[in-house]
């Protein structure tokens, strides 16, 4: 294998890993948010949780389509989402960890939502720099105008949606989620003694988990977004945006992350296995089922 081919293969590999890890993170995050449906503090937040989870699940689903399309093995989006075991799933711990209260739901949404928003913005900026936007009409030169798994005709050649296409759909959605999370974080932090204390506790507990993801990006790990975008830029911009939002709410993240994570690797694995058991239950019980 030539040096160029080897480097292309490595870059394809890290891209595939990055896409799958992002899809996993969003799938698990959507699952955790949907756990609030039925136990949110008010009806409006039940609807918010259901809607936000559905958007994030939809974005994850597109990412799995993209991952299946670029995979060197023959696989399907469902197989990737529902057929992989606990040791293969690469979701960020911040998305897997369960919310202990409503403050954690909102602070987690602020931290992870800003991560998604920053990443999509970088993907979008890169795509715009490479090709001028296509006319909002019938342009057939659109590189993302590829049939995806939604094509009805089974003989059609199936390709996946482009990452830029996924990003352009996701950007307004995540901006709306962030507006919701930002207003709640601000309100909780500036509310009663109880809501303030819970907000601070939530940030103290979740911040080290967020830093794990950001540090992994800074060190160039594929499953923290390196391979998709400039990961150092992703980490820096995430931090700027999050600190600004927290500052507006009058919250300050802990100066230094806790020395030891509150859960060791084995405990984390057990938690992930538990969520996956529920998430993948129907697909595993009825393989290949359609309705």
């Amino acid at each position, binding site marked *: 294998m030539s040096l160029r081919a080897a480097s292309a293969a490595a870059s394809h590999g890290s891209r595939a890993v990055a896409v799958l890890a992002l899809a996993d993170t969003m799938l698990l995050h959507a699952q955790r948010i949907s756990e609030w449906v039925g136990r949110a503090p008010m009806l409006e937040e039940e609807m918010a949780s259901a809607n936000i989870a559905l958007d994030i699940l939809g974005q994850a689903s597109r990412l799995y389509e993209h991952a299946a399309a670029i995979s060197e093995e023959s696989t399907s989006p469902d197989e990737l989402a529902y057929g992989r075991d606990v040791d293969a799933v690469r979701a960020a711990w911040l998305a897997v960890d369960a919310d202990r209260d409503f403050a954690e739901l909102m602070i987690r949404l602020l931290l992870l939502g800003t991560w998604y928003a920053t990443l999509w913005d970088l993907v979008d900026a890169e795509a715009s720099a490479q090709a001028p936007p296509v006319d909002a009409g019938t342009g057939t030169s659109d590189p993302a105008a590829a049939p995806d798994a939604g094509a009805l005709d089974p003989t059609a050649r199936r390709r996946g949606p482009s990452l830029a*296409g996924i990003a352009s759909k996701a950007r307004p959605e995540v901006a709306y989620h962030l507006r919701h999370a930002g207003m709640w974080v*601000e309100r909780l932090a500036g509310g009663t003694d109880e809501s303030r204390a819970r907000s601070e506790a939530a940030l103290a507990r979740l911040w080290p988990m967020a830093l794990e993801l950001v540090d992994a990006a800074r060190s160039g790990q594929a499953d923290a977004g390196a391979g998709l975008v400039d990961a150092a830029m992703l980490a820096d911009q995430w931090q700027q945006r999050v600190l600004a939002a927290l500052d507006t709410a009058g919250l300050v993240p802990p100066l230094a992350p806790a020395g030891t994570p509150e859960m060791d690797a084995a405990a984390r694995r057990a938690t992930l296995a538990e969520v996956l058991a529920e998430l993948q239950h129907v697909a595993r019980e009825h393989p290949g089922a359609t309705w």
Partner: protein
Amino acid sequence: MNADATPVWEALAGICDPEIPALPITDLGIVRDVDVASDAQGRVEVTVTITPTYSGCPAMDVIEQAIGDTLGRSYDRVRVVTRLTPAWTTDWISERGLELLHGSGIAPPREPVEVPEAVAGASFRPLGTFGAGAGPAAALPGPACPHCGAADAEQLSAFGSTACKSLWRCRSCREPFDHFKPHRAPGARE
């Protein structure tokens, strides 16, 4: 649009979004392209390109199915292609579509989504400007009430019965109503 495509567009105009039964998919702006081609045997294939509204909108599958069923009655082969970019925006809802929404009691999208500036570094609205609803609905300038026309609505919930709607209440006639949320890329102008 070529001449052959006209009857296809007309047929598509008879298909409505299952979650907004008043609104044909052609007025919703999700049908981006129609192509009609025939092969050497004279078999006619129609390709309809659609773009989803929201990433997770469950209505899209139903719409694809309806397109296949409807056109399948008149054409030999129907393909539905999903295109993600350029992304759908409420700016693509036709004038007629806006009127149909209004007529069915849904306030049409009328102003750009305000991007959460705080996330970009500026500030959120100060506390105390939230609406009277249970959630922290911001005191955004509300849509006009589709029932009585008064421009004095409060947001009850930023999220509604479907991904594309939020829930409001008119302070004048006291009726609640759905608002079709303005949807476009952050930073994009109306």
